Every structure is written in C-alpha cells, then in structure tokens.
C-alpha cells in the first residue's frame, strides 16, 4: 500500500451535551478496505457523517488526497470523489432502479432546466452517454433483472445493492459504506461481499466500511478501527484488533462465535 | 303570454365575501320582479331573473355572465366590487347593461366613459359628501375633528379624497385610521382613534367589520351618536352590537327602510302572503331587502320606458337608452327621485341620513345631494384615467 488517501486528525463532535467523537485520528491508505467497528452509539456513523460533510466536526480536520474537506458541503465532497451509502437505505422512492442508479451520474451532468426545453438536442444525448456507464455498473452488480422495477418494491438486500450501484456510478475514488450488510442472511451477505470486493478491485477504490458482521469484517478488512463511546480503543490489522481484550469486552461479548 | 320575457342576470355572491348582504338584497330583487310579473309584467313581457352564485370568484362570474348572456339576459347585477370591475370592459363590448348600485367603480357615474354601466344610486363619494353635509347642518363642520376608520382596501380608502377636499372647504380636520381586513379585530386601531379625540367618527366597512367597529367605538367611550356609517350598516349589525347600545348611530341610506311604502305593501300582499316570496318573510322591509327592491324598480322602469319608446324586442342598447330616460323616478317614495342622463349614470347622487332608534332606522334628513362639484370632479378625474387606458 502507498500513501494515505484520507486522513482524519483529532476529530471532535458534540451534540448538545453529548461528546460523540472524542478526538479521533485515522488514516486510510490508498486501495485498502478499512473497517470501522464498535458498539451501537459509539460514533461510527457520526465519524462517517463528518467525512462526507453532513456534520462539521467542531475540532479537527479531514484531508482527502491531501485536500481539506471538512467544512465543504456534502455535494462538494461527493464531487471530489467520495461516495457513500447509508445505514438506513436512502434510495429515491418513486424512481425506478435504473433512475436511481442514473442519479449517481449527477456530478457529470448539467442540471439546467433549460435542457428540458431543448430536450431532443441536448438532454437526450447526455442521458444516452451516461446510460453506458450505468449499464456497466448494472452488469457488475447483477441488477439486470430489476432494472425497471420501482425501487421501493424490491427486497431490502437488492435495495442495498442498488445503493451501492448508485455510489459506484459517481466513479468515486473512495467508497464509504455504512452497514451494507445489515439485515442480510448468509447468502446475501456473501453476494454483497463479492460485489464490494469486485468493485474495489476493478475500480481501484479505497473503501471505508462500517459493519457489525464480525466474520465479514475479519475476512475482508485490511485494517480496522474500533470505536467505543467516541474513543478509539483499537486500531490495526483486523484479526489483531478484534482480539484485543478491550474490544472483546465492549463490542464482541462472551459468545463472539455466535454471530 | 307569448311576449318575449325580459331576462336579468342576478349573478351574485351568496357564499363568500358578501354573504352579509346578498341574501336579503337578492330576495328583495326577486320579490319585486315577482310582483311585477304578478301585475302583468312590463307591457306584457314577463321578467325572468337568472340567479347564480359566483362565490365572488372572477372566473365563476365570467362564466355565469357568458352563460346568462347566451340565454339572452340584457341586464346584470353582480353585487361584487371585484367581479363588476373585472367585467366592465366586457359588458361595454357586449352592449348589455351592468348595474352597480352601491358597489363597483364610482367613476362609472360618468356616462360618456361608461355608457353601459349604471350605478343608479349614490356612489361612495356622494355618500361621504351627504354624511358630511348632515353634520354641517346639524352641528356644523368647522373646527371639528373627524376620524375615518376604514377597512384597508380600495373600497375603504375610497371616501378619503372627497372628504379631504370637503375638509379644505369647510375647515375641519380629518384623519384616516385603516384596520386590516376583514376587520374582525380592530383594537389597536381604536386605541389610536380614542387618543385622537375625534368629534365625529366615520366608519367605512362592510359586514362583520362594521359591528366590530361600533362595539369598539362604544367600548372606547365614543358616543354612538357621533358615529356616521357608510350605507353598509343594517339591522343585523345593530343586533350584533346590541340593539339598545347602538342608539343614535347614523348612517347613509339610499332607500327607505320598512314596509311602510306602496311598493312594499303590494309585495307583502301579492307576493309574500300568497307564498311566492323568495326567502324568509321576516326579512321583508329590512335595509338590504329594500335596497334590492329599489334596484329592480329602477331597472324595470328603464325597461318600461325603453319598450314604450323603442318597442320590443328589448336589447341592451335599448335598455341603456331606457335608463337614460329615467327622470324624477322615486319608486313611489322608496327612494329619492333620481334622474339618469347620458352623462350622469348615478342619478344625481341622492340619499339621506338616518338614525338607529333601538328598533328601526329613522330618517334625520331629507333626500338630498351634497358637494356635487367636488364629487363631480372626483368622478371626472377618475373616469379620465380610465378613458386614458385605465
């Protein structure tokens, strides 16, 4: 691995009286899969929200490819090459799967209402060009069968996959996934893992992933960061970090093998 | 009867802004037309009223107007300032008569500019003048302080220019106190009025706002006798304020109130008693009912004159001519004698002042007109702007 793509330095975030992140620092290397784990409410999503611009950290700074991104608004960060998915699926209801994925191309389009006036000359061409990329991603994630379905009627597992597809369409250099496998059974988990690995490899991405499925974390993450109550309690290669006694106590519990 | 009926379009607002007046007004109109028909019509022609609710919405007014026109109506009454104003051009283009008694554009009194529009009764400008005149003749105007408490709308602001000019002439002080429409809450305005210590208060509103004004005035220690109201003040308002509390309040009136009049007596006898009335018989003789009757007496008179002079079938232009032939017509004492000419569609701008006695309105002045020059000037300048494109 080479130089870090993302550097978080001393990130602090408060919500009223709650100190949700207490000076977190982390570095994610180019091309690695980086796991973010920790008990519920430990601040994982908050950290990710800081990285993607939804919350501004009150203290600390975040650099992406050497450029400071804290303080930027989410859409600017997206345009800079970070894409993400959400813990609770956040697809656009009322749109088809295809349209949802096409939305991922937004940063490459020109959202001008005048386009609608001259649709045949202008917008249509733009659309058709982007469709090729979209179809590629649909192929990659095997979404052909639901391409034209309304997104709210397809099963949750597929919805998460569509969300991933939407994120990939933006041709990001870094992908942030918040619990992509929550609520999936074994088979679906395996599919999801395969898609994440394929995408990472083929598109040469760095991945930041939050996941509670320990087996997944230990087997695909190069390194992990474990949070507890806004503090970093462990960091390092997945298997080592996960067997840290503090991590076991706070996060995994006695019957770790059960999950 | 094989003579063509004459059709009037009474397309009014029964459900929205003007509900306080429309019911009784329209009932008076219909009852009078029934009376005319019962008595054999106008030269044998029956009069047919096309009655529709417009809800005070312009698009409904336009539709109702076009439909009634297609059915052959040649006279219209919308009893709605916005609808009437909106349709003035159309009416003149279609050459049918629009009557705008006590509403609509005041400058429509200028007959050359508005050949097909007939206010037929005193405009708000004339009303203000007559009220001022009554004060002048009872207590004198000079040195007085007059507060004009009005609804903040074009209608509410309308009397101001005329009153200001009269103030100049007569040497009294005048100040406007607008309250926000619809006027159900005016307390801040009246705090100001009380501090102004006016000798006389004009209240210029309509509907619920009027009784709120009176209540507020009394609560603020203003003697009802010092209050002068625009024509829109009726028995229902008195009841709302408290019939006894309002004793002494004076208003402008364009027609007599009560059933003590040959026409109303005949209505009671031939329409109400046989059960042909258009509504609740307890309304017969109320202020707004009688205004309704009076508007139709003028229209029927115009139709009669037109038929007499020009012969059937009656058309818009003929009816217009009929209106302009009306001379000294007073509806057997129900209203002041009016004379409508091609230049004066207001009919002279007559009216009188009456006072609430606790149970009825008692006239305190004769039918009169006042400050004609000032009113006339106002009409002329306003009509001139219309002629100039607006």
């Amino acid at each position, binding site marked *: 691995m080479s130089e870090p793509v993302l550097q978080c330095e001393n990130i602090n975030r408060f919500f009223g009286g709650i100190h949700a992140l207490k000076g977190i620092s982390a570095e994610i290397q180019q091309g690695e899969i980086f796991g973010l784990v920790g008990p519920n409410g430990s601040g994982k*999503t908050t950290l990710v*929200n800081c990285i993607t611009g*939804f919350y501004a950290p009150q203290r600390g700074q975040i650099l992406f490819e050497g450029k400071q991104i804290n303080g930027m608004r989410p859409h600017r960060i997206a345009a800079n090459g970070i894409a993400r998915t*959400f*813990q*609770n699926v*956040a697809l656009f209801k009322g749109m088809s799967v295809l349209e949802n994925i096409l939305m991922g191309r937004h940063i490459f389009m020109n959202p001008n209402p005048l386009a609608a006036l001259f649709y045949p000359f202008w917008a249509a061409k733009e659309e058709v060009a982007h469709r090729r990329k979209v179809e590629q991603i649909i192929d990659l994630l095997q979404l052909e069968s639901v391409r034209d379905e309304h997104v709210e009627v397809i099963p949750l597992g597929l919805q998460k996959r569509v969300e991933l597809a939407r994120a990939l369409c933006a041709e990001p250099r870094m992908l942030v996934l918040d619990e992509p496998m929550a609520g999936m059974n074994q088979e679906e988990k395996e599919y999801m893992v395969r898609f994440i690995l394929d995408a990472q490899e083929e598109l040469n991405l760095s991945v930041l992933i939050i996941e509670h499925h320990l087996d997944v974390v230990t087997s695909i993450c190069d390194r992990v960061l474990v949070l507890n109550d806004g503090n970093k309690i462990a960091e390092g290669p997945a298997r080592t970090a996960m067997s840290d006694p503090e991590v076991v106590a706070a996060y995994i519990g006695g019957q770790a093998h059960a999950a | 009867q094989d003579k063509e009926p004459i059709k009037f379009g009474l397309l009014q607002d*029964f*459900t929205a802004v003007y*509900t*306080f007046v*429309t*019911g*009784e007004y329209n009932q008076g109109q219909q009852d009078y037309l029934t009376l005319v028909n019962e008595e054999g019509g106008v030269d044998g022609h029956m009069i047919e009223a096309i009655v529709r609710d417009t809800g005070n919405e312009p698009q409904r007014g336009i539709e109702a107007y076009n439909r009634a026109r297609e059915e052959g109506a040649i006279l219209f009454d919308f009893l709605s300032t916005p609808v009437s104003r909106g349709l003035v051009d159309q009416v003149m283009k279609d050459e049918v008569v629009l009557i705008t008694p006590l509403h609509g554009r005041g400058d429509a009194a200028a007959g050359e500019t508005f050949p097909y529009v007939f206010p037929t009764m005193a405009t708000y400008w004339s009303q203000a003048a007559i009220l001022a005149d009554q004060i002048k003749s009872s207590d004198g105007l000079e040195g007085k302080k007059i507060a004009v408490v009005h609804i*903040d709308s074009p209608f509410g602001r309308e009397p101001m220019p005329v009153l200001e000019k009269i103030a100049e002439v007569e040497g009294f002080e005048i100040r406007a*106190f*607008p*309250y*926000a*429409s*619809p006027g*159900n*809450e005016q*307390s*801040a*305005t009246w*705090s*100001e009025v*009380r*501090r102004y210590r006016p000798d006389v208060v004009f209240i210029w509103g309509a*509907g*619920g*706002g009027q*009784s*709120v004004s009176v*209540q*507020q005035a*009394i*609560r*603020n*220690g203003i003697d009802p006798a010092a209050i002068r109201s625009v024509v829109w003040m009726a028995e*229902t*308002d008195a*009841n*709302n*304020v*408290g019939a006894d*509390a309002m004793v002494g309040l004076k208003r402008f009136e364009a027609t007599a109130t009560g059933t003590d009049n040959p026409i109303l007596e005949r209505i009671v006898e031939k329409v109400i008693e046989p059960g042909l009335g258009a509504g*609740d018989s307890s309304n017969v003789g109320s202020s707004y009912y009688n205004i309704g009757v009076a508007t139709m007496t003028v229209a029927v008179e115009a139709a009669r004159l037109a038929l007499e002079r020009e012969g059937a079938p009656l058309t818009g232009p003929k009816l217009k001519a009929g209106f302009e032939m009306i001379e000294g017509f007073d509806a057997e004492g129900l209203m002041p004698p009016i004379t409508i000419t091609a230049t004066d569609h207001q009919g002279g701008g007559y009216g009188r002042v009456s006072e609430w006695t606790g149970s009825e309105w008692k006239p305190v002045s004769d039918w009169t007109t006042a400050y004609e020059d000032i009113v006339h000037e106002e009409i002329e300048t306003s009509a001139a702007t219309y002629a100039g494109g607006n």
Partner: protein
Amino acid sequence: MAYFIELLVNGALVGLMYALAALGFVLIYKSAGVPNLAQGALVMMAAFLVWYLGSLGLPIWIAILAGAALMFGFGLLVERLLLRRMVGQPVIMVVMLTLGMEILLRGLIPGVFGASPKSIDLGIGLAPVIVADVFMNRAYLIGGLVALLLIGASMLFFRTRLGTKLRAVSDDHVASWAVGLSVERAIGLSWGIAGIAAVGAGVLWGSVQGVDWTLSTLLFPAIAVVILGGIDSIKGVLVGGLAVGILGSVIPGYLDAYAGGSTRDVVTSVIILLTILVRPHGIFGREDIERI
C-alpha cells in the same frame, strides 16, 4: 406610555383570543399529527350551533354546554366516517381531506342555518373598562381568561397517561397499533377535544364579530400563532398567541400613521417569516429527529 401599555395589554388579550382559536389546531396536531385546515370551520360550526340552540330558547350557558357536547360528538364522527380510512396515508392527503371538510362545512353550515350574520349575546357589557387611562376590552378580557383556562387544562391533560398515549399516536401510527393503542380512538378523541376548544373560540369570537362563515377565517391568525409557538406545543400556543397579539398591536400602533395603511398583517407576516428563518420549529416546537 399609557398608549404603549394599552396597545400591549389589548394586544395580549387579542393574542389570547387567537390562541383560543389556535388551541384546537395544536391539540389535533399534537395527538394525530395532522395540521387541521378545518379548524376554522369547526370554530364557525360551533358558533352556529350555539346560536341555533340559543335561538331555540335555551339559556346561553346551557346552549354552550350542549354545543360543546355536540362538537365533541362531531369530532368523533369525523374520525369514524373519514379519518379512519385515511390512516397510514401521506399527511398531505389528510391535510387535503381537512381542506375538503372545511369547504363542505363552509357550505353546509351557512347553507342550513342561513348565511346572514347572527349574533350571540353573552351578556358582556359594552361599558368601557379604563384603568389609569389604559382601556381594556371587556369581551377580550373574558376571552383571554377562558383561553388561559383552556390552555391550562390542555397542558394538564397532556401530562396524564392518556395524553402521553395521544402523543405516541401522533409520532407513529403503525407503531401505536402494534402496541395496542387504538389510533382511531385517539384521533377521534383529539378531534372531539378540538371540537370543544372550537366552541370556546366560536362563542367568544362570534359574540364580538357576529356569527357567519367568516369565523372560519380565524384559521389564519391561528396558524400564525401556532407556527410562532411551535406546532405541537401548548405552551407555544400561549406564547405564540401573546407574541402575535402584542407585536400585531404595538408595532402597527406606531407604524400605521406613517405607512398609510394597516400594517398589522404585514407585521404578522414578517414575524412569521423571521421566526421560520431564525428558528424553524417555532419557539417551543419539537424538532424533527432525523438520523442519517
């Protein structure tokens, strides 16, 4: 100074009168989660009912009580016939339904009882109440007291277990069902109570401005009060009412003379705009909890 105090006091009283009209709106929002655009129509209906009962010869107090009972029943009926079938639909559709209801009532009530204005006489005298050159409106004084009373009672109500259940229902209908709360009954109850609040507003406003359909336009000042105070807060009704009343009285009291028109509605509009921009959820309103 006396002028200022007078504007202040009367503004406060008027504000309480508006709060009275706003209370029902908040009650329904707080327990059913629906902005009820028909609240003004309920106020109108209540006033017509009380007037009608009075015109049958009932003493005014009995008429008011009977009116309250009828309006409560009407609230239950609305739920039974209409809202029950809308549970789980997008809120905007339920809002539309209340708009339909307001149109229907605005036709039905004046259509049946007559559109010309009626009067309710509460026996509140017109003689001025002037304390140290500060004039007070007797009718508003009484209205303000009634408003305080009803607002207080509502605050206590929402402290009870039943009140908590109603709040739960407004949060999440499906979850309420799942734990055995009868969403239907809760919504019915909240409409019933809002109906009673409407009687208070209808009778007091009706006695001041007369009873006709225009009472239903009280909805707008009521909404202004509610937005300012926070749409689901009863405390907010009180504070919002006072603020709208006082600012809408004091500022125009000094400004009108120069503006050449009545600035009250402009002032109110600006207050609303500023509140929304500065504090989107009103003074006491609850924030939306949105976790990403």
